[in-house]
């Protein structure tokens, strides 16, 4: 019957209004690009967002969409997914929306392992409110609200997610088209809460925040691409790797007797390893890819299984007898 969907089918008629050069454009393009490949009817796809630059996202997707209130998208998505488990529900949030005002909802959605695809655009700044520091801004950051430098210790989105025992935790970069597409597809294929941190450049208020992993000239020496079952190798000439020195990871140069066999092999099912990699900060390379992926029961499936079980064991609800329960008597 219908012809196969294309990227264009997922482009809404609304003019995109992010600042020219914003990393959000690249992310939108990759999401629209993978949509036809997911095999989900457009009407069964829902994008839910909170408040912030990233949260304009649903307006540009020709699917069902709900631009909600600051920080609450995971909670609203939870109500939808529980009652409509057949829908594909995506949450688009940012570092302020998801980790500051909405931190509580994010951690509980991840902890419950409700089957939501959560994309957190991390630009380490408040863009929509014009340039205050965010919960992922580094200490010392000078912004409009921190003229003397921020003294506020930041969150690391990956380790926050791992701390909730989220069942899928990954990181990608706005300009890494192929890597971002692959990561989003993996996130979509996962059953349960998928958390993807997308490093996103705000060229107006925090330009170049992720240059070390996005600048083609230098990124190879700063980006560690995680691949399940493969040793942790990086560098322009793939000549560096991560080796354990006792309990501590260290960067080693390959050669001079050091081979890939000495390196840590990535294992997506190892939560401790994921935590260790999640804590990598310069001068260690920045890992991108899937830190952790494990199968555990989803909240939405468990809730609906209880409902189905109740229906099976008690029969469908019968209003007349329900109203007539308890301490009753007849007056004639």
């Amino acid at each position, binding site marked *: 019957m219908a012809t196969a969907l294309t990227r264009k089918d997922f482009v809404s008629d609304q003019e995109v209004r992010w600042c020219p050069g914003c990393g959000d454009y690249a992310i939108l393009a990759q999401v629209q690009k993978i949509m036809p490949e997911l095999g989900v009817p457009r*009407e069964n796809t829902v994008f839910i967002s909170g408040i912030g630059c990233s949260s304009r996202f649903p307006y540009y997707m020709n699917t069902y969409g709900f631009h909600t209130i600051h920080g*609450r998208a995971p909670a609203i998505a939870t*109500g939808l*997914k529980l009652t409509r488990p057949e829908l594909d529900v995506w949450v688009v949030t940012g570092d302020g929306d998801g980790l500051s005002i909405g931190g509580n909802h994010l951690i509980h959605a991840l902890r419950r392992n409700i089957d939501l695809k959560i994309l957190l655009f991390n630009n380490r700044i408040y863009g929509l409110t014009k340039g205050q520091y965010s919960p992922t801004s580094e200490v010392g950051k000078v912004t409009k609200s921190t003229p003397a430098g921020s003294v506020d210790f930041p969150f690391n989105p990956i380790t926050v997610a791992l701390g909730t025992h989220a069942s899928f935790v990954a990181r990608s970069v706005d300009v890494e088209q192929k890597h971002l597409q692959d990561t989003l597809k993996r996130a979509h294929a996962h059953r349960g809460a998928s958390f993807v941190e997308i490093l996103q450049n705000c060229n107006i208020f925090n330009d170049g925040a992720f240059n070390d992993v996005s600048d083609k000239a230098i990124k190879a020496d700063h980006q560690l691409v995680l691949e399940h079952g493969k040793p942790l190798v990086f560098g322009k000439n793939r000549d560096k790797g991560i080796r354990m020195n006792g309990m501590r990871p260290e960067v080693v140069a390959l050669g001079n007797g050091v081979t890939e066999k000495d390196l840590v092999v990535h294992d997506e099912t190892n939560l401790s390893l994921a935590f260790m990699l999640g804590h990598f900060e310069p001068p260690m390379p920045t890992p991108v890819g899937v830190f952790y992926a494990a199968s555990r029961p989803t909240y939405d499936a468990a809730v609906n299984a209880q409902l189905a079980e109740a229906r099976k064991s008690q029969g469908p609800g019968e209003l007349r007898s329900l*109203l007539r329960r308890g301490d009753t008597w007849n007056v004639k």
Partner: protein
Amino acid sequence: MAVPPETAQQIAQGSGASGRRKPVETRPQFVIRFAGDSGDGMQLAGMQFTTESALAGNDIATLPDFPAEIRAPAGTLAGVSGFQLNFSSQQVFTPGDEPSVLVAMNPAALKVNLEDLKPNGVLIIDKEGFTDANLKKAGYTSNPLTDHSLDKFQVFEIEVSKLTTSAVRELGLNTRAVNRCRNFFVLGLLSWLFQRPTKSVTDYIESRFKKTPDVMEANLRAFRAGFNYGETTEIFASAYEVKPAEIAPGFYRNITGNTATALGFVAASVKSGRPLFLGSYPITPASDVLHELSGFKNFPIYTFQAEDEIAGVASAIGAAFGGSIGITTTSGPGMNLKAEAIGLAVKVELPLVITDIQRAGPSTGMPTKPEQADLLMAMYGRHGESPIPIIAASTPADCFDCAYEAVRLAIKYMTPVILLTDGHLANGAEPWLVPDADKLPEIKVEFRTDPNGFMPYLRDEETLSRPWAIPGTPGLEHRIGGLSSEHLTGNVSYSPSNNEMMVRLRARKIAGIAREIPPIQVFGDAQGGDLLLVGWGSTYGTLREAVTNLRAKGKSVSHVHLRYLNPLPSDFGDVLRRFKKVMVAEMNMGQLLKMIRADYLIDAVGCNKIQGRPFKVSEVESRIMRALEG
């Protein structure tokens, strides 16, 4: 007339009581209050006595009054828990101003409650609770049992612990377990004293303690021992009987406000054919609705205990977006937290019911005590112009109709609706004439499915509500959100004139609900008179009784009790203007009063109480009398 399943005589005969039966004195009505430590099981005893009284055919009303602390230190004033029941052979409107019978399990319970007991009232005391230590904890410097301070009452001192212990001795239970049977001894004694049918109690004990047969047996023995103690000892000269009341025929159930609220939502779900989704965060006194609904999964009903109040309402909005009936339940502090999300539901025009089971504030206030001070918050407690329909239940059983009506309006008008009840209704109980499920009003759900001409904000001409177009419907993909949106398309719009139009359209939509509000029923003089008493919510019974009493004395006083608080009924202004004086009675500083003065420019006066306690009938009567004289 009600037919008790088992008469007191049968019990007495069955228990082997011998000899001549004591005389039974008939009285029209009693107000009895059970009071003890919060661990003494007085709520349970009270509720069981209530069931017995309902089964005896009396009309009833109850008022539980318990401390916020789960277990305040034993014997202290803070730990006193009370339960009051009014049972009568006539129609009952309230739990009663002053008890004529007080059960006090310890000195603290006596101290807290004695001032309410009627002169010459019956005082039943657990004598063994009056130890030096307990007297000191309650702040008594001398023992009221011996210092003649109780001389104006009929005092019955009973050694409850000793009698209970001897009744269950053979079972070999430890002291703690034995002590926990004392409430059933007392209940047994009162069941004899008021000649109650007892089968409901024995059935309850058998089912409640099914898994612990020795505890079951102990409670049964304690209960029977209490009953027989009344019959066989010299302490009581006679028993009392309260004949069945004239009650409309039908099938009755004893119901609390919170249970009725929960059932109203279930009924609305069944009648609309849509699943119910409750997103809620535990809070006193609303949690029982969550508990209740969590047991009805097969309907299907989703209950989601959210991470906080905000997620409670937000998840309900998400469920409504998906086509379920989204509801959230809370009390005052939770309402504050939900305000922003409720505003979102106003803006995106999705159906949602927010139940605020009001409690005494501000802030944490008195969580277990009722108040009506959230009305103006329900009206105006959001930023921007965001009108919401508000309905308020007036009795525990009325919570069913109001919950049902709230869902009906929410769906018909695609709007959040606020349902106001309070702690007094939530935990209070009354007989409920169970409605015929088939005869409940229709709740029609029509999802938009046709893509031809679909626009998210194309409104129904009559109701002005927008279509409910749910994800999963091919061809209707669209986006909604909190940003100001364009008429018809719903696209983001900053057009100044469009914004004003949309604000006014939503306001007109809500105001239009007045079309279907039934005409006001005036109790008293529909054509007008000296004074109209206006009320809303749980004050219903008290106000009706006060007006009934004054009318019996020839006063030209009438009563109107509102269910719809926003919009107000369209004939309300006309009704108000027929009376020389208008008085508004509320458990707040005058919130409906402000609305009436503002909307109708009528110089109404207030009758207000902010003590976390319902009005007494006598208080309202004297306030009305002052107004009539002044």
